[in-house]
């Protein structure tokens, strides 16, 4: 208990907790349609693009957040457009764009010499979070939560059956665009805490865990949110107590929830 009190007496831990909880909640909600529509790889691809943008911004001596955010948002719309193309498959386009961005970032860092710490971008750093991150996290959650409530039934219709949703007048292209943009913001913001290689876990893992136990869409949404918040909190505390990297510890916490859900499903023969 004393350790917990001590932990939250540090300003950087409070920032990490606030950003982490808001981010994990937004990520879990955005993750539901992405994962259920088998579009999880968009998150993974965008995180590599974010790495490239962060690296180039650092090499040029620019603030990373304002540079990376528009680049990742634009890339997400590009991925959606290419995914609609009949010539290329969506996953191949994601791989092409993400590996190119990763290569560009690495190339830029190597040209700059040892002035840029690549590890912070790849694996995240709790110390890198500033007040701007807290503000963006609050804005993100303030946008995602009402959007999800207002469009809940429509998001469900589009997620379950896009053709039917289009036939009854839903603008499915707009939904796809909004989710890709929100996913970009989660990636860029979360990369500072979790790192480029680990951030997509926040979007994917809670939904996969919830899907194993839930028998309705509503249950998937609610349990994803709860699992995501718990896993973030447990991971953050564990990383402080064990002195381990925050991003990796949070992902392992998410993995523990996934394995527990899997075990529970098998024991109680759910789904």
């Amino acid at each position, binding site marked *: 208990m004393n350790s917990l009190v001590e932990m939250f007496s540090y300003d950087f831990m409070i920032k990490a907790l606030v950003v982490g909880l808001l981010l994990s909640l937004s990520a879990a909600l955005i993750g539901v349609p992405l994962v259920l529509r088998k579009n999880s790889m968009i998150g993974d691809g965008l995180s590599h693009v974010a790495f490239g943008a962060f690296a180039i911004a650092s090499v040029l001596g620019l603030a990373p957040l304002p540079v990376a955010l528009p680049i990742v948002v634009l890339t997400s719309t590009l991925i959606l457009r290419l995914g609609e193309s009949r010539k290329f498959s969506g996953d191949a386009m994601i791989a092409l764009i993400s590996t190119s961005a990763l290569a560009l970032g690495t190339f830029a860092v190597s040209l700059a010499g040892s002035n840029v710490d690549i590890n912070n971008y790849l694996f995240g750093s709790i110390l890198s979070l500033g007040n701007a991150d807290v503000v963006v996290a609050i804005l993100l959650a303030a946008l995602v939560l009402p959007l999800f409530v207002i469009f809940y039934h429509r998001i469900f*219709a589009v997620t*379950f059956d896009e053709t*039917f*949703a289009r*036939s009854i007048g839903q603008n499915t292209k707009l939904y796809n665009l909004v989710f890709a943009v929100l996913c970009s913001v989660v990636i860029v913001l979360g990369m500072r805490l979790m790192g480029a290689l680990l951030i997509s876990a926040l979007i994917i893992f809670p939904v996969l865990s919830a899907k194993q136990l839930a*028998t*309705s*869409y509503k249950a*998937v949404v609610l349990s994803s949110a709860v699992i995501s918040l718990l896993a973030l909190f447990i991971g953050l505390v564990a990383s402080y107590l064990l002195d381990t990297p925050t991003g990796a510890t949070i992902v392992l916490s998410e993995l523990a929830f996934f394995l527990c859900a899997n075990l529970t499903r098998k024991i109680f023969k759910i*789904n």
Partner: protein
Amino acid sequence: MILLETKNLSLGYGKTTVVENLSLKIAAGDFICIVGPNGSGKTTIIKGLLGLISPQKGEIIYNLNRREIGFMPQETKVDPYFPASVLEIVLSGALAKNPGRVFYSKDDKQAALEKLKLLKIENLACENFARLSGGQKQKVLLARALLSSSKLLILDEPSNNLDKTSKDGLYKIIAELNRRERLAIIMVTHDLDHDNLLGDKILSLRDETIFFGSTKEFLKRVHHE
């Protein structure tokens, strides 16, 4: 009453035309089967009637709200392991009447339960869609289509992947809906020899020629060939 009419309609993708010069009228209570080999344009016609692709030539005249055409996709087009309750899926059909709604009303829920009752699957309302059999899943998708329209249903190969018993049951229900509720039905099918299949009209897309007429006339032509 004519619900929908196409005049010299050509449909396709980009510069490729798949269906040319299609003229037909669909009236209340009609039962039209669309038959033809793979690639003949059956799905393209459905997409055109639903407004999912624009006509390359000609026009479609709707005497009903286009959103209120009930659509039932092939079962294989829907994720069979999607985590959703039957009621959640059927209720999404209520968005057709008001696409901007935030919450479902009590009337929507009542209407959804009535559709389930009509198809004799009201006991499945709270079941997980992923755990249902193929036939039950098809009925759930049919209930959703029924909630979205009481005038015209478009069914895309509804009996795909079903065994004979489930297939017979589903065709019987569809025929009853057409007869009892005066619901116009357009059904894409491969089951040319099925007893229950043949509605009153056939749209046949074979050998790049389009036949649209009565079932009797179509059968005469087939027997002559």
